């Protein structure tokens, strides 16, 4: 029971925080909620299957761009719906073509996808519409953005919890261990992978759409910044990508560290970022949660 009650209390508390914090504090909260959403949504597909995707920003950027293009013609709800549909459709097409790739081929492909989408949009804006940048003017407050993102994060985590207990979750875990065994056990590989990939992509796209009014001015190089994809991966891995709360546990502290680094050491920031990546992979390869459990288990073993 406390597994449901505690998160709900936490959620309620987080929902009233914006009433008491400064604008700067609220900005941090939005950033943290965004990365919790991105890392959790990423882990929804990649955490169990071990398909390391660097396409996060392809969907995030698509969401932001959809808002930039449609915000003056459609209502906000309809814009979000369009973003979700576009993100889901891209994921479906891309997934059908590429989920056969494994290991490093999939990593490289997913990275290429983000670049491809960015280049296509740039080309289209320059050659067809003749504008590169776009403005987002929406009648939406910063608090509302926060609440939406918090809601999306909560939905993502709840969905993940449900998937972990479902057949889909079990199929994803088997696929992560051995696709051959999965197939010969009756699992429809293509369907399971596509379903998880599309679900994950829709959330990533919505995250980009919800956060986009914060940018005000949008152009491809801003919203398709590959650093977002890398940050997402490292956050999920730090906490433990195959655990429900792992991505959250990785995203919050890392986001705060990145914020602090980028405002205090703007020049050496990329180097520090690189070092942090290497540190995470070497020091906590299985994520913080698993490492802590192992330490606790050892301590218990030593006592007992």
């Amino acid at each position, binding site marked *: 029971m406390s597994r449901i009650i505690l998160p709900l209390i936490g959620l309620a508390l987080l929902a009233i925080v914006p009433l008491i914090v400064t604008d700067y504090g609220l900005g941090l909260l939005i950033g943290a909620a965004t990365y919790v959403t991105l890392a959790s949504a990423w882990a929804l597909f990649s955490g169990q299957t071990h398909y390391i995707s660097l396409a996060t920003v392809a969907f995030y950027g698509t969401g932001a761009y959809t808002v930039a293009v449609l915000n003056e013609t459609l209502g906000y709800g309809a814009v979000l719906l369009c973003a979700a549909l576009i993100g889901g459709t891209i994921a479906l097409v891309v997934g059908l073509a590429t989920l056969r790739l494994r290991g490093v081929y999939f990593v490289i492909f997913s990275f290429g996808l983000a670049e491809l989408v960015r280049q296509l949009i740039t080309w289209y804006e320059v050659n067809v519409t003749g504008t590169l940048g776009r403005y987002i003017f929406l009648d939406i407050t910063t608090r509302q953005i926060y609440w939406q993102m918090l809601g999306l994060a909560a939905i993502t985590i709840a969905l993940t919890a449900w998937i972990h207990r479902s*057949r889909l979750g*079990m*199929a994803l*875990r*088997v696929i*992560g*261990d*051995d696709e*051959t*065994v*999965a*197939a*010969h*056990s*009756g*699992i*429809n*590989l293509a369907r399971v992978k596509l379903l998880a990939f599309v679900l994950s992509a829709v959330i990533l796209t919505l995250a980009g759409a919800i956060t986009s009014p914060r940018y005000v001015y949008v152009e491809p190089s801003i919203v398709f910044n590959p650093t977002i994809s890398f940050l997402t991966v490292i956050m999920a891995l730090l906490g433990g990508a195959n655990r429900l709360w792992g991505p959250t546990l990785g995203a919050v502290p890392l986001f705060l560290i990145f914020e602090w680094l980028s405002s205090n050491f703007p020049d050496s920031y990329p180097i520090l970022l690189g070092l942090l990546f290497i540190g995470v992979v070497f020091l906590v390869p299985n994520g913080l949660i698993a490492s802590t459990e192992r330490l606790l288990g050892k301590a218990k073993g030593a006592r007992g």
Partner: protein
Amino acid sequence: MSFLEIDRAVKQFGGLRAVSDVSFTLEKGEVVGLLGPNGSGKTTLINLVSGALPATSGDIRLDGLRLTGLSRDRIARAGVARTFQLVRTLPSLSLVENVMITAVFGRHAHWGAAARRVALGALEMVGLSDRAGVAAADLTYIDQKRLELARALAAEPEILLLDEWLAGLNPTELAEGVALIRTLHQGGLTILMVEHIIDAVRALCPRVVVMNSGELIADAPTDIALADPMVVSAYLGGEVDA
């Protein structure tokens, strides 16, 4: 119509004909040995039946259902379960989860308590039920083989394909393994087993089919087939397995 019908199955790997016009049938409840020297195409034939590889030509039918052309998961759900010559277990899952997956995703689509019950029953059969909760990564090689068989059994299959499941066991384990397969046979399961251990084949299989260089060279009662000069020379000509 027989239960399993393999009709002129062919598998071509570039210039190599690994399975060449192989035809034979199995009746329901039969245990048949699939013999042949190394590289004769036994595993490839198992792969054709289970859908791991698409056949170049030919037909494979189970109880009238055409398996050729179906995907691996469809074939599994049609009731075909297999083990692998090189054992494949799921290291990050517990034993009971390893076994449960075929119950969950197989043709009966069990879930929850029912899936667990089937999985525990299968673990019980192979003698692993006391360790149901441990991670598969911690098992010895022999226990991994047991686990793999339990996974195949939890599918509650129509036909079981074993690829040298008895290989690598010590004499005591071998005796246990033979007894276990006999129990499965008595339970009415249809089994096609690739096997090099002739004593086990004699003990379990009234009938064998023998392959050599991709071709079927014998399909006869075990004693007769093993005395067949073609079979003897195929084995002596090729490398004999330890």
